């Protein structure tokens, strides 16, 4: 299957600041491909080069067999873009915006059906300035899809949406993909990447630090399970830390937190049972994409800032 988007050794700097150092990835037909990374990692610059909004300093980009800079006229017909910060005129109404933007394309989608799918049917006559944050976001997604694109680039898709609207949007994106649209998704929201993406490129400091499916990325992280419980009677740490499947044990007040491999839960509960220790409020957490992300990018923004003044 040929790649729909191919980025090779992309490099982009703004003056002395290197925004993207060396990024390569390929997105296949019909895939939902995520670009994940902390703020300032170079995610938006990367997709802006894919969209043809910026000229790379080095590297090659190929989208649907087109050069995003040279073949702009053709690319814009086939690539739908949702921008992080693209607003509309205050007094432009939802229906007007959809019809106007639809008229820009060779094969526009049906504006009414799209408004319906995005829960904007009741807001057709509402001016842009009077829309809620979530409605603005959904209109922005609708405008990315109004040209019936083959590829859609969605930047911070569900920022500003409430949980229900977020779930609805995820369902919509899956519907759009089911119709054969390839989707490049920029996000810093783990649950979204985990739920939607077939593969994820984790970008940090302008480089791809990992590229795999969300599940495979999560598996790479050590400490596959985290088990929390409140023991009915005190016990020595060694009772559990001696187990081969247990990698660590900490105590938070009277709560014990054990980390270990995916087999740790069975080993821990059987040892506790043998010593007649009941484990109250037992909870097991599976290491997820978030743990993988933190491990790959070296923690949250605060620690990053401390490391790189």
């Amino acid at each position: 299957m040929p790649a729909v988007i191919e980025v090779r050794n992309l490099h982009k700097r703004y003056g002395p600041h290197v925004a993207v150092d060396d990024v390569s990835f390929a997105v296949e037909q019909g895939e939902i491909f995520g670009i994940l990374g902390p703020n300032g990692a170079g995610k938006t610059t990367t997709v802006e080069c894919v969209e043809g909004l910026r000229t790379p300093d080095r590297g090659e980009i190929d989208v649907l067999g087109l050069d995003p800079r040279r073949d702009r006229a053709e690319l814009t017909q086939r690539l739908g873009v949702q921008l992080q910060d693209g607003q509309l005129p205050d007094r432009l109404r939802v229906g007007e915006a959809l019809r106007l933007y639809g008229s820009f394309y060779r094969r526009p989608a049906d504006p009414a059906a799209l408004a319906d799918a995005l829960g904007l049917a009741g807001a057709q006559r509402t001016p842009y300035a009077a829309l809620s944050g979530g409605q603005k976001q959904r209109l922005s997604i609708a405008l990315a899809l109004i040209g019936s694109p083959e590829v859609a680039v969605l930047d911070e898709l569900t920022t500003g949406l409430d949980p229900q609207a977020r779930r609805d949007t995820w369902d919509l994106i899956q519907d759009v993909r089911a119709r054969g649209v390839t989707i490049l998704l920029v996000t810093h929201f783990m649950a979204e990447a985990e739920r939607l993406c077939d593969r994820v490129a984790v970008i940090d400091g302008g480089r791809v630090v990992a590229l795999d499916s969300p599940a495979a990325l999560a598996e790479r992280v050590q400490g596959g399970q985290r088990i929390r419980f409140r023991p009915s009677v005190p016990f020595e740490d060694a009772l559990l830390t001696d187990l081969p499947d247990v990698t660590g044990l900490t105590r938070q007040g009277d709560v014990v937190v054990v980390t270990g491999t995916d087999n740790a839960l069975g080993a821990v509960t059987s040892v506790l049972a043998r010593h007649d220790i009941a484990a109250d409020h037992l909870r097991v957490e599976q290491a997820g994409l978030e743990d993988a992300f933190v491990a790959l990018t070296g923690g949250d923004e605060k620690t990053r800032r401390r490391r790189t003044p």
Partner: protein
Amino acid sequence: MTAHASAVPVPPAARPGSVLGRLTRTELRLFVREKAGPAFAIALPLALLTVFGNIPYYHRHRIGGSTLLELYVPILASFVLATLSFNWVPAAMAGYREKGVLRRLRTTPVGPARVLAAQLLVSLATAAVAVAAVLLVARLSFGVPLPRQAAGYLAGLVLAALALMAIGLFVAAVSPNGRVANAVGATLFYVMMFSAGLFLPIAAMPPLLRHISRAAPLGAAAQALTDATQGHWPHALQLLTLAGYAVVFGAAAVRSFRWE
């Protein structure tokens, strides 16, 4: 993969004319909904005309053969062009850039240049309507004769519109945001309106001030319109001055314009 995804040659995008037409209609709708724009460009000059026209002094007092009211009609026509060029165009365009409207258009097949063209067309059409309204009300309500040199008047009006819009575009191009564009435009508006003789007709100015005013864009515009109103072809110096401003600021605006 959908059938058209391979490298099949594709027919050209929607006809540019029809898209510009749609954009212009949309911009016109937005302009009318804005209310302040039409009020400043059309209602305010008419209101000033009505006030001046009802003051007997403006009919009695004469400077060089024309009544004061007759002298004020070309100034009000300049006012129309100035308010659109300095109070409307820069803020609207810089606002579009600031809000990311132009940026979003860059990702579509249409691109951002045509929405700016649509805004200019709306401003020019509004100017034509407002100037026509001023001339007609002056004629019908207050007996002020229509411009005697109609072709010269039209030439002066078109050149003046181009020169002032070019300056407005330049302000939009170099202003970091809509607020700054608004402030710069409003300042220019008052300075320029002085040179056009809104507060003191050019003919009544002391000689030095008169020369400076005629070299300023709006002063040159007002002088050209005044000459044509009185039946002369506008002086070549004023027309050249206006053409010069149009070319210099038009080129500077295009060179310095940023889409985001």
